[in-house]
């Protein structure tokens, strides 16, 4: 064994076990921490979790996350004479007691920011998401 095999008078191989620190260990540590941080940050993003919210006369009366609805399930609820259908694929108005039926004629909504309103019955159903890329929609 020559001097180059020694560090602090201890064989280098042994030193690795004694101190457990090497440059490449530090690099691995740094990379691991960064990966962990990336995972932690991306953990906030819980995917495209869109929820339908229903307001009747300005009051929030119903909320339903579309991802919690089974693929072949349809939830139908009545809000002040407006029958709204909720599925995992989208939301639409099935029936309404309003005179012009504009809400019934509107196609289903399935992206964040979209809304269907029955103005005579004062009912609004809209889709919201906390992980959206948009703040509001102009139309």
């Amino acid at each position, binding site marked *: 064994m020559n001097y180059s095999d020694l560090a*602090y008078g201890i064989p280098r191989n042994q030193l690795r076990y004694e101190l457990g620190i090497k440059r490449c260990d530090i690099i691995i540590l740094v990379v691991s*921490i960064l990966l962990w941080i990336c995972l932690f940050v991306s953990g906030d993003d819980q995917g495209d979790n869109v929820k339908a*919210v229903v307001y009747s006369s*300005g009051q*929030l009366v119903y909320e339903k996350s579309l991802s919690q609805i089974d693929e072949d399930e349809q939830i139908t609820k009545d809000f002040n004479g407006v029958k709204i259908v909720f599925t995992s694929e989208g939301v639409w108005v099935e029936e309404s007691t309003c005179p*012009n039926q*504009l809400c019934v004629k509107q196609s289903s909504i399935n992206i964040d920011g979209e809304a269907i309103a029955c103005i005579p019955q004062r009912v609004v159903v809209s889709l919201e998401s906390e992980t959206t890329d948009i703040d509001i929609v102009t*139309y």
Partner: protein
Amino acid sequence: MSLKKQINTKTKNILICVASVIAVAAIVFSIYIVTQNKKDFDSYTKNGISMGTVITVKTYGNTTAPKAEAIMSIINGLDDTISWRKEGSAVSKINNGEKVKLADLSTIVSQCNTISKDSDGAFDPTIGRVSTLWDFGGENERLPSKEEISEALKTVDYTKINKNGSVYISDGQLLDLGAIGKGYACDLIKQYLSTTDIEGAVVSVGGSILAYGNRNKAKDNWRIAIKHPRKDNAFLGTISIDEGFVSTSGDYEKYFEKDGKRYHHILDARTGYPAESDLISVTIVAENGLKSDALSTACFILGSEKGKELAELYKVKAIFVDKDENVDVIGDIDFELSK
């Protein structure tokens, strides 16, 4: 190896360790700060119906809920003033021949008249008698006869509005502020928000948008999606702005079809019929809500060529979509077309 060399190597390794720990801590701290800055302030969302349309209010910062409620009250209050459908409203009184003295109304009418003049009468707030005939979105929505339209058109003339002191109109005229009401509501909301300590808010009054303040510490821009004029469940693209007003007029929002023809709600005040320009959607970004609302209507009616001239005259930014779905971006807008 000499003792001195051993000590140097040891010191060097310790320094590397310390430097590494500091570097990691700095990186972690930086990421934490960036993450925190990107994180939106506490927010409150409220949806409702007013002015015959859907209202969405999102407020950010402290005590957001009461401010969202206050915004709803402002919109309801304006609706009670300018709705021609509401009995007892200021506009209803004017339409019944009364002289009404109201600062808000004088401001609105003055700004409307300027845009009416600059659009060669394509946009005109005295279109009330014509829009009553069509009654888009109302219970009597129908295709009026040519004679009815011709008769009603005789009453359309913005120059006959008296706005000196009291606001009043000529016999037979009806005021319809529907084309600017939503934008003006956004102006009033901004005035209110500027008196509060709110961090930010984004408000949609039937698709007319006010973007105010910030939603997070990083002061990221507001992202406003434009509804695709021809595709359901799709956006044309997204505008990114720090603050301002955005309004869109399109032929897809309120319409009916008769004998295979689509009749949309944006009426050309010169013909009394739905505007037949080469455009299907116009979005205006401006520093004033009333202007953004009125100009989106006026540019839509005028079409791409004259509409562009009008947008440039008012120094507003615009996005025009023509019948072939070509998109023309006018002015310096941070706009991303949807894929």
